[in-house]
């Protein structure tokens, strides 16, 4: 059974640009969460979507947005990139809320 997949693996952008990251959950999982992991720190919660609706939002600016599609895959969008947005972006899926989450390999974003 395939795990959580994310694309692209690596991405280099310049300040002010826009980026879209993609995530496909494990088959049968309806919940997708996004996390940002800066080097040397633990992952920080950005969003959770369940059944295409936002269920939770972390303490991130409005430049960050996300959505979930009918097939439960998800996109994370970040506008007006800043140097501080450089991080590993993780996607996790689960069957429902407050249950075990399965993490993908992440997308490494570098902002120059």
């Amino acid at each position, binding site marked *: 059974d395939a795990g959580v997949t994310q694309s692209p693996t690596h991405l280099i952008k310049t300040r002010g640009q826009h980026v879209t990251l993609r995530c496909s959950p494990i088959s049968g999982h309806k919940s997708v*969460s996004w996390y940002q992991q800066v080097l040397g720190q*633990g992952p920080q919660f950005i969003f959770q979507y369940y059944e295409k609706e936002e269920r*939770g939002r972390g303490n991130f600016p409005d430049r960050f947005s996300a959505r979930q599609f009918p097939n439960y895959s998800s996109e994370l969008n970040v506008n007006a990139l800043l140097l501080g947005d450089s991080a590993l972006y993780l996607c996790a899926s689960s069957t429902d809320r*407050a249950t*075990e*989450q399965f*993490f993908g*390999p*992440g997308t490494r974003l570098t902002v120059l």
Partner: protein
Amino acid sequence: AQSVSQHNHHVILSEAASLELGCNYSYGGTVNLFWYVQYPGQHLQLLLKYFSGDPLVKGIKGFEAEFIKSKFSFNLRKPSVQWSDTAEYFCAVNPSYNTDKLIFGTGTRLQVFP
């Protein structure tokens, strides 16, 4: 604010030594507790979890953790570490009233030498 503290940032052990990694959280209500591991070059994997019941939880690869509610702690233990346990370990809390939101600690880097 809800937070998770991991006291040890970097631990160095020899094979066969015992391991205990500390984790404390600041939240007064019911919580679900997790330990995740990130091996070099790999993604986060679940080691063990506590939702309710027996506060001593056994996970994969010989790891266990004990939930002590009065101390807001969920320490990870292994009686005898192996070189293959070299990894970064994260404690995480999910306040069960909320969504899937996990609050992670800053992680502990474990290095095991043969």
